[in-house]
């Protein structure tokens, strides 16, 4: 049985997927930055601290003040499902504002391969929607 998205179990599974991905480690070796992935219309969000190809911390929270990440990406649950299933490119989603980004898009676009590998990790997580 998969981990429900979003949940602490899903955050843990995602952290494990990231930290076991050699492709992500190589693509994101220079990346420094943490995220909130927020489900709009709810108070639920996933926090991920990504640092030089590793995930240092991942947590499920409903407290916006849990951390003050560099990036916050907000989307409806249905859009997150598409991203996690690899059906919606997250950068395309941000450009069309289906995913709302608070933070520097250029920094993300300069690390496209890392973003793609991160999505690749997410698609590997056995997820229950």
């Amino acid at each position, binding site marked *: 049985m998969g981990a429900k998205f979003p949940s602490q179990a899903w955050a843990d599974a995602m952290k494990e997927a990231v930290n076991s991905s050699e*492709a992500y480690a*190589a693509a994101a070796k220079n990346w420094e930055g943490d995220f909130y992935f927020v489900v709009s219309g709810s108070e639920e969000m996933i926090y991920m601290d990504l640092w030089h190809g590793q995930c240092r911390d991942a947590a499920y929270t409903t407290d916006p003040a849990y951390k003050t990440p560099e990036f916050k990406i907000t989307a409806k649950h249905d859009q997150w499902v598409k991203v996690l299933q690899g059906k919606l*490119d997250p*950068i*395309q989603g*941000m*450009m*069309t*504002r*289906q995913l*709302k*980004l608070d933070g*520097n*898009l*250029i920094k993300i*676009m*300069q*690390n*496209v*391969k890392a973003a*793609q590998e991160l999505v690749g990790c997410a698609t590997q997580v056995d997820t229950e929607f």
Partner: protein
Amino acid sequence: MWFFSSPQIIFGEDALDHLEELPGKRAFIVTDPVLDSLDFTARVRGHLTAAGMEVQVFAEVEPDPSIQTVRRGVAQIAAFQPDWIVGLGGGSSLDAAKGMWALYERPDLEPEEISPVFDLKLHKCKLVAIPTTSGTGSEATMYVVLSDPEQRRKISVGNRELIPTLALIDPSLTSQLPPRVTADTGLDALTHAVEAYTANFRNDYSDALALKAAELVFCYLPRAYEQGHTDSEAREKMANAATLAGLAFGNSLVGMAHALGHSFGGYFKIPHGRAVSLFLPYVMEYTANAGGSRYGEIARHLRLTDGDDEQRGARILIDATRSLEERLGQPTSIAAMGISPAALEEALETLCAHALSDSAILAAPRMPAGDELERLFLYAMEGKEVDF
């Protein structure tokens, strides 16, 4: 969900006359010193004056315009407060005009902060883009490429509000283009078309434009190169091809030939079109080697083959691209550009880092892994067929 965005396009002979219909009191022309010394600026100024506008000219745009140049223009625009900014020239002048428009209206932003994810809320003036080359497609896109001379790199940013209000495509402006510039810019248009057709963000709208643009380039670029001073039909078709290709990639993005070309051109000061088209066949080989590239579809559209074997079709298109470049006297390897293996070796780490962080790589159909970027540069150095 995706968007299709376009300026209003006025095209064909005497398109410049439309300037006389523009409402407003002041127009600010952004161009380069060469065009200013010829009669281009005077022609545009004449039409704007006939429209009853006061005109000011900024003729300081250099090839690969720098952020500093844009800031100088912004200062003059802020003092002049025009109703229209008029970009006149090749991609450099048009991109500089867009950059000035953005930073005039949004002085709170750094150029690197311009992105598609928020509204710029431009409201003070509008932009007319008048290309005098047939290649960059900047007149039809939201993208702005500026250079950072200190870091020997280019930055590429964009926002849908930076699509020019009007694009005036008057082929008479390109009739006297030198053959080398005709080739560089025309191959830039081909690179836009091919990469737009294969980009991950491609769509039915961009596909149609990309195919037509590629068809026009293959048919008319040799004529524009060889007899452009007298072949007005070839000039008109190439002007349209460039704008069509601009619309195509503006609505689907480009790919790795641009990522490598931006990096390489920024470092070694190679004209944009020459740099991106140098890498186009190598990137096509690299992409085709993974299968499913769609190059065969382009080859079939161009009637280069009627077979449905994708790999065979891709090979035919790659060979046709190289043949076209050779016919135009274009360098087809880094060595042919006069760059030594030692110079490339010294730059290689920087070139790869800049290419990998270039936003053009975003929608590439095949993303490089491991040392593949480095190998692509090395293969392009030797003019060697990509076999990985």
